[in-house]
């Protein structure tokens, strides 16, 4: 037979009660603080250096604004990807022809998306894209300057392509109301998968039997990369929701794609999941606090 206190605990309603009468998990009367704005501050460490998020207030978000920002990211993100593959080609002569072809493909995606935007009266938001992509470009440039081809492969293959796949796939499902969008995004998605396939094969061969070294590289590159692109994913959650997509689904898809990539390179499923989640937790923390992610 369970005591009265436990029965109260099990059926405790969520309506606030005074601190002195709150039943404790241990069944005794405890004085755990209530969570009002008045007393919460005393228990939460001050957030120093936190800046306001760039997101506009919820009431400002419209479908037009959402499409302009999301398509801005898509168009200019593809251009950044084209540039990244071109820089990779500089660093690896034996694969330069293929990597330049990849760069051209990414450039074409940007062109197709721009044309589809024009046909639908959508002006891709360049300033928003610049703000979101600036940190990624800095990372790409730093890896290129260091001659770190493997880091560029990981950044482009794991982070950028994963974000593209995880957002293009659901967008295609809902894009029928924008003439021409479904077709160009579907074609681009198929080509992104070809790029990911090459990345996977390259890394599997390059790091065969050297899991620890590979994971160290992934963590080094992606702790910054996730901050950047995962942060963007979180910053566009409201826009995704506004056009009928789920931010959670896209975030889940991105982590799942990333995990599967690690597995395809040869990392065990458990280790891959652990690695991905560990990378994302600090980012989720920032999202929760509505801090800038980059």
């Amino acid at each position, binding site marked *: 037979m369970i005591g009265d206190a436990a029965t109260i605990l099990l059926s405790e309603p969520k309506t606030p009660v005074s601190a002195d009468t709150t039943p404790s998990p241990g069944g*005794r009367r405890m*004085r755990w603080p209530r969570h009002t704005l008045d007393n919460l501050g005393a228990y939460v460490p001050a957030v120093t250096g936190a800046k306001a998020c760039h997101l506009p207030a919820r009431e400002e978000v419209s479908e037009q604004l959402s499409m302009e920002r999301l398509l801005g990211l898509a168009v200019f993100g593809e251009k950044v990807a084209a540039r990244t593959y071109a820089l990779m080609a500089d660093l690896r002569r034996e694969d330069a022809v293929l990597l330049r072809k990849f760069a051209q493909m990414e450039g074409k995606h940007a062109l197709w998306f721009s044309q589809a935007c024009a046909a639908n009266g959508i002006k891709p938001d360049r300033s928003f894209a610049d703000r979101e992509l600036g940190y990624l470009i800095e990372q790409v440039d730093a890896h290129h300057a260091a001659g770190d081809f493997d880091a560029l492969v990981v950044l482009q293959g794991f982070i950028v392509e994963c974000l593209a796949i995880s957002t293009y796939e659901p967008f295609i499902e809902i894009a029928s109301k924008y003439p021409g969008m479904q077709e160009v995004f579907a074609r681009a998605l198929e080509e992104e998968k070809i790029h990911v396939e090459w990345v996977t094969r390259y890394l599997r061969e390059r790091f065969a039997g050297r899991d620890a070294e590979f994971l160290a590289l992934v963590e080094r590159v992606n702790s910054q990369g996730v901050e950047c692109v995962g942060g963007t994913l979180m910053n566009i959650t409201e826009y995704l929701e506004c056009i009928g997509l789920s931010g*959670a689904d896209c975030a889940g898809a991105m982590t799942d794609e990333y995990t599967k990539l690690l597995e395809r390179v040869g990392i065990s499923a458990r280790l891959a999941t652990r690695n991905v989640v560990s990378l994302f937790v600090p980012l989720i923390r920032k*999202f*929760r606090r509505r801090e800038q992610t980059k």
Partner: protein
Amino acid sequence: MSASPLAAAFAPEPSSDAIQLPAIARAIAPEALDSDEVLLWTIMRAFEVQASAQYRLHTPVLAQGKAEVGPTLLHLAGDDRPLDESILGPTMAELVESAAMAGDEGAVLVAQGLVLERVRLICYSTLARLPEVPASSRVIAGALEPISAEIVARTPGLFASVCARTGYKPFSLFTEASDDVLHKLDAVGEGVDEIFGERFGLRFADIVGDFVADLVPACVELGMERRKVMSHLAGALMGI
């Protein structure tokens, strides 16, 4: 400190096959623990006592192994003040309150058996092996680990039975009963890192990493789609 009324309610009951808490863990004196350890076990006590109560009420088969856990932890860390005075107090209280909303067998199997029991298992497993953790707490964690492991192992079968009996779709039941608990779980992360990170080397990101790595295949085994589970976890942890 006066004994909790629940101590009597959770007095050990004879059990035929459940794993019992080793005597060495029961023999540790409260004075052997330093202040960080006391806070740690105050937190774990809160969750263990709650889990025991919920198991006994809704899934008695899972309560057997826990019979001695609540009283032992109440003996070691029965005073709430360390938690009251900690930055972890508010977020832990919210997590306890969220778990308390599980009011039937299915919800308890999800909130406790699939989620919080797995988190406890990972915490015990990690604490038992971290060299920075004092020996007495390593012993306690090591003693609690197999008890949690047994419950975690038994939960999927019970969950599947509930779904079959009630007609609930596994993913629907899982998401409904875990969403808020997962969100509240993530909220304790910063406090855990601040208090136990430097002292014990316990990192919340690692705990959640292990948790998701264990939970996702368990959900897939129960017939849920991996991508959907990942999306639910991402959404719940992000609070979207």
